[in-house]
């Protein structure tokens, strides 16, 4: 029983955090939103050198052979820094979906992949920068061609493309596991976004003064932000528990069920991050409503990720289905 990150896991997060803090991901995200993907792709390659893209690739295929626990720790950091790009698709979904199929080694080394998985994930994120584009549907993964024009997301850094399957089924992986890993990684990003919004909001209310006092000294502000802290604190254990469930190893303390636990984590992380976003905007006031202020990157990203890789309604339905199936034998 040791339900906190290990020293190795902490070191891994710390190295990612220092890389990201020094890389100006906000500038990369703003450029990405304008269609200038070079800075974002440079960051993509640096993270690949750090091993992020190879986390779920088995060691024998040239990967890190890490677990979903390391995956969620990495994606929380990506969310915290608003890093643009199809990470969920390329780093979480595709390695599991491809199994040992050929492009997996290239992806582990930093080739860009992306995938659409209708109906829940109808568009392919950042497909124009991806070398390996797929559609997952009807129980199979197929190569795909990309439409010329992107649709516009509330999160301007999410460039979404229609894609059309072009070939035969590829890959020997597990599509259900791939979906769950994508949902899990999205949940982790949401948690990171929520943490960032809370931290920036706390900083802001400590320096913004009205009526002669820091606004953070008023209970109306404090209680809103305390509720965000509480929501995030209780979302994180669900995320980590679901990551453990997704490793497939048995856990004695809490009966695990991958589908149920991943969906519970996605629901809780989305709720907590959305609460952080609403509260963060409110305590910032009008400045928070501007595109120029960096808070906007996280506010819009949270809104997009709440419904990405499974809406809250989809994930709640999965939890209910699992509970109802287990009824009577509940742990």
């Amino acid at each position: 029983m040791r339900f906190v990150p290990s020293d190795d896991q902490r070191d891994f997060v710390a190295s990612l955090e220092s890389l990201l803090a020094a890389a100006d991901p906000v500038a990369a995200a703003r450029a990405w939103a304008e269609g200038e993907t070079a800075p974002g792709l440079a960051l993509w390659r640096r993270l690949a050198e750090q091993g992020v893209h190879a986390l779920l690739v088995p060691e024998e295929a040239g990967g890190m052979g890490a677990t979903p626990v390391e995956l969620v720790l990495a994606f929380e950091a990506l969310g915290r820094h608003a890093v643009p790009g199809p990470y969920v698709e390329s780093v979480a979904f595709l390695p599991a979906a491809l199994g040992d199929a050929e492009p997996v080694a290239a992806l582990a080394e930093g080739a860009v992949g992306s995938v659409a998985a209708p109906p829940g994930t109808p568009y392919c994120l950042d497909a124009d920068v991806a070398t390996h584009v797929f559609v997952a549907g009807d129980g199979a993964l197929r190569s795909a061609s990309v439409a010329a024009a992107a649709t516009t997301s509330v999160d301007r850094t999410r460039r979404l493309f229609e894609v059309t399957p072009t070939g035969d089924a590829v890959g020997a992986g597990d599509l259900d596991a791939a979906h769950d890993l994508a949902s899990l990684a999205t949940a982790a990003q949401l948690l990171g976004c929520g943490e960032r919004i809370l931290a920036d909001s706390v900083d802001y209310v400590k320096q913004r003064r009205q009526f002669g006092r820091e606004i953070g000294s008023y209970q109306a502000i404090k209680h809103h932000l305390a509720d965000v802290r509480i929501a995030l604190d209780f979302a994180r254990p669900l995320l980590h528990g679901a990551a453990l469930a997704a490793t497939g190893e048995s856990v004695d303390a809490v009966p695990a069920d991958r589908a149920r636990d991943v969906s519970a984590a996605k629901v809780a992380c989305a709720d907590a991050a959305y609460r952080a976003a609403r509260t963060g905007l409110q305590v910032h006031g009008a400045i928070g409503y501007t595109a120029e202020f960096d808070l906007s990157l996280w506010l819009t990203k949270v809104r997009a990720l709440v419904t990405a890789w499974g809406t809250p309604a989809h994930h709640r339905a999965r939890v209910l289905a699992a509970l109802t199936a287990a009824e009577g034998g509940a742990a």
Partner: protein
Amino acid sequence: MDLSLSESELAFRAEARDWLAANVPTEPLPSMDTAEGFRAHQEWEAKLAADRWSVVSWPTEHHGREASLVEWVLFEEEYYRAGAPGRVSQNGIFLLAPIIFDHGTPEQQRRFLPSMATGETVWAQCWSEPEAGSDLASLKSTARRVPASSTTGESGWLLNGQKTWSSRAAYAHWGFGLFRSDPEAARHAGLTYFLFPLDADGVTVRPIAQLDGEAGFAEVFFEDVFVPDSDVLGAPGDGWRVAMSTAGNERGLSLRSPGRFCAAADRLVDLWGERGDTVPSAADGVVDAWIKAQAYRLYTWGTVTRLAGGGEMGAAGSVNKVFWSELDIALHETALDLLGPEAELESSWLDGYTFSLSGPIYAGTNEIQRNIVAERVLGLPREPKGEPKGATR
């Protein structure tokens, strides 16, 4: 990161599960806030104690099993999963006992702990006063030093004043509470922690009917109640510091183990199975209650890991308290939704709902907890406090 259990932890859990399956009463006991139910709950405590299940984390010489924190959480999960009775002794075993272990003399430990463990002596918490609720440090009940009496030879204190909202006091045997022993000292200083029998000369207990009509708490009046020095817990004047270690326990882990919410959430899922088709709109409430109970369970394993590694509960107890109290209400509201027009009728769900309504109030209101989270966890500036009570007189 892992959620694995050792062989001995698994064996402990299996032993607890088996004992509870064999011993938990098949019919619910009458309410512990009635004379009959109080006695029935005391008998249950005696049964638990006879097989050393009443205070599993205590030392063996005090009826315990020296269970680790992990084992304690496992026991609590099994306890609630088995549908075992509420703990009439919980104010004693969970709130007072940790203080007696930390601050009590060996003599006090020998005198108070065994009868607490068996349920023979049930303790009531006497903290709040009519004018001192959230602002507990403004309490006015006094303790006056008196010299050794010629008959007993004991020196001690005379307690005067009034306590209120004392849970279990209507039927309990002893109380514990804070009194102002130094009228000159500032708010938090000059308070002393006393233990006293509720049938002592000068003590009057007036039961107060709660929302459900039963006397779950009481007012307690003190008129020159003599308490010997041997019943002072910790040093005179040090009562606030001593008491605050109780507060952390009450808000945090000890009073609200995840087991009770997981068991209630599982029962809610069962209720959904029976009635969901009649109230399909309750689906999200069922799912969210289960998710939050699971979150609380997993969060607790994180807390256990940190505490086992030498960490302290600290302000995390406040994060915890807001979450479980709101979860408890939402869970029971959903159950009542599922019961439809029968929701107003007496039932265990209605009892649970009524009890849950007190959660955001006792053990420090949720507003106080949010202040603590904001100030001590987030580091936001303290709000300028009002004038201390009585300062203008």
